[in-house]
């Protein structure tokens, strides 16, 4: 895929059917579409476009025997420009584009600046020979027709496609933040928190710096530390368990359900019983706990909504209620997931999510959020977020963090949240297409979604015995894949001191040795999904 910026003359040639140039321009436009190249227009060209197009339309209409006033021609030009631009991307004019009055051709100089900003290998499509001579990125429609299509590849996650749709609002919001200058805890943060809480059905939302801080902060608020145990899944990203160890507490891993890959509620009960009764042989436990279970207190459970699928919260909350444990839902991948008609964010005592760029709701850097209905917890989290502040940040009630969500990231998330419900629908449609397409492929296991759940489909992950061979074959077919997660946390070197050994979490170990994820994003076309499905079938021919 190449980026192609159109000069005014190119557009006017097509709109006003200007001979002989129109033919090359039409061919070049068709070539761009066929190659999958992204076509751009520079917003600074708008006035020249409409006035030049109007003039030419006035001329061509005169050939049909009618005489348009300039106002009428301008109206027609705008109608035709509306049609032409409905399928192009608008490239913003920036402040540096104003510094061109010492140039021989200020308008050309602006286009050169714009195409350079677009990307070093972007092309400026023009028939202006002078511009072609002066700008290395400028190319005539004829020369462009000689270029071969770029390699057609499927994106694992396509943030560009989303940006193409949301660009006007994203750029406006970024610009707004630059103008009001409240880079820390600006109005966008509060606006986002309100909208996120409403979406999730939670009383409070606290925007934080990243998904890891989001997990760490509630544990800090609960005062979890040395001697405390927190139960969690071994089949997750390290951050889930890392925060437990960071506070000096001990993670206790509980194996997963073999169909959902989420923590198994029945095994949570088994692990608790093993600890509380001292029958430490009944469930694999950290060495220190095995040795002296009385020295530890179970404080919390962290279920993970893996790949976007909510964990089984009813039995988890029941176990937690029975043993007076706090449930912190790690919904880093699961924001937008639904469990028994309720969105994640309202299913546990507190829920965290991550806005890492590749997440279903992602920003353009790091970001995260915590949801809760507990006012007292929300207060503590708000304090911990800014160095344990009280009345202000120089009044420090507790040890806290520097964990604020950037205003800029909140500004980026606001338009993304607007399109999030529609994106979730697309993700579900794409997941259904994968599942339907792969239904007859007996060598793989497609994701299982319990009837009471809707996944946010952060990932579409399949299990296959010969993973490496399949991945290699898919790569050859231009299908990217990724492994989430190739090693269970209880076997990670970082947790060696816990004393877990291979075989302690058999389901997690088996799945981590055979699972991999397929391309998944809301802008994946049906054609691309079919291509992936066909490529998978071909692996078994």
């Amino acid at each position, binding site marked *: 895929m190449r980026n192609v910026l159109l000069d005014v*003359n190119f557009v006017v*040639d*097509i*709109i*006003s*059917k*200007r*001979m*002989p*140039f*129109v*033919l090359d321009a*039409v*061919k070049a436009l*068709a070539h761009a579409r066929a190659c999958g190249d992204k076509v751009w227009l520079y917003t600074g060209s708008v006035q*020249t476009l409409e*006035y*030049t197009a*109007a*003039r*030419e339309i*006035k*001329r*061509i*209409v005169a*050939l*049909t025997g009618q005489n348009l006033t*300039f*106002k009428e021609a*301008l109206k*027609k030009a705008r109608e*035709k420009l509306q*049609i*032409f631009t*409905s*399928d192009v991307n608008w490239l913003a004019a920036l402040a540096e584009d104003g510094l061109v009055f010492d140039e021989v051709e200020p*308008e050309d100089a602006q286009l050169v600046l714009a195409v350079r900003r677009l990307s070093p290998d972007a092309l400026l499509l023009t028939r*202006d020979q002078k511009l072609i001579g002066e700008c290395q990125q400028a190319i005539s429609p004829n020369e462009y027709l000689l270029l071969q299509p770029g390699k057609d590849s499927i994106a694992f996650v396509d943030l560009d496609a989303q940006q193409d749709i949301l660009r006007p609002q994203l750029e406006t919001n970024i610009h707004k933040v630059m103008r009001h200058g409240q880079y820390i805890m600006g109005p966008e943060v509060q606006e986002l928190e309100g909208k996120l809480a409403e979406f999730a059905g939670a009383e409070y939302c606290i925007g934080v710096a990243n998904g890891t801080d989001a997990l760490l902060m509630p544990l800090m608020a609960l005062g979890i530390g040395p001697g405390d145990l927190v139960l969690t899944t071994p089949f997750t990203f390290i951050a889930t368990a890392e925060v437990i160890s960071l506070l000096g507490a001990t993670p206790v891993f509980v194996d997963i359900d073999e169909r959902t890959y989420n923590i198994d509620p029945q095994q949570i009960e088994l692990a608790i019983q093993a600890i509380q009764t001292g029958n430490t042989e009944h469930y694999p436990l950290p060495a220190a706990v095995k040795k002296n279970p009385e020295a530890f207190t179970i404080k919390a459970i962290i279920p993970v909504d893996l790949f976007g699928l909510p964990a089984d919260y009813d039995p988890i909350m029941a176990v937690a209620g029975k043993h007076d444990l706090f449930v912190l839902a790690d919904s880093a991948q699961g924001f937008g997931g639904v469990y028994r008609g309720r969105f994640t964010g309202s299913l546990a005592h507190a829920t965290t999510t991550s806005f890492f760029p590749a997440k279903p709701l992602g920003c353009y850097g790091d970001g995260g959020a915590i949801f809760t209905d507990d006012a007292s917890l929300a207060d503590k989290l708000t304090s911990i977020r800014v160095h344990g502040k009280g009345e202000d940040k120089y009044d420090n009630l507790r040890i806290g963090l520097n964990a604020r969500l950037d205003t800029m990231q909140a500004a980026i998330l606001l338009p993304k949240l607007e399109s999030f419900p529609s994106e979730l629908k697309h993700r579900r449609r794409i997941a259904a297409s994968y599942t339907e397409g792969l239904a007859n492929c007996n060598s793989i296991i497609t994701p299982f979604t319990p009837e009471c759940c809707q996944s946010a489909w952060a990932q579409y992950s399949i299990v296959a015995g010969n993973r490496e061979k399949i991945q290699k074959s898919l790569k050859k077919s231009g299908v990217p894949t990724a492994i989430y997660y190739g090693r269970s946390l209880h076997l990670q070197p970082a947790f060696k001191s816990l004393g877990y050994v291979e075989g302690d979490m058999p389901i997690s170990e088996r799945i981590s040795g055979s699972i991999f994820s397929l391309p998944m994003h809301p802008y994946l076309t049906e054609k691309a999904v079919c291509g992936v499905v066909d490529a998978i079938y071909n692996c078994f021919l």
Partner: protein
Amino acid sequence: MADKWGALMEVRAVYEGGEITFVDPVKLKHSRVDLLIVVPDSEVLDNREAEYQAIEAELQQFAKDNDMLRKLWSGFDGKYLDGSAEFGREAFVDALEMSGKY
């Protein structure tokens, strides 16, 4: 021109489908002979016009499969502009003046 041939004789001929045929039978000495043909000015097609007509035919093919092009060119009734005279910035300035906006 006549110097090349000497005395000239006028003969009626018809041009049809790219071939010229004598209306009145004439026998020529050689198998290949340069002739001087008189063509009415009104029948001569400008080369550029022919080129543009060929392009127009090709554009119609593009428009057949392209809704956007059909919409863009609706109302032009097969007409097209001769863009051989360059306008460039002058066209824009000209247009601005015509608009009466500035």
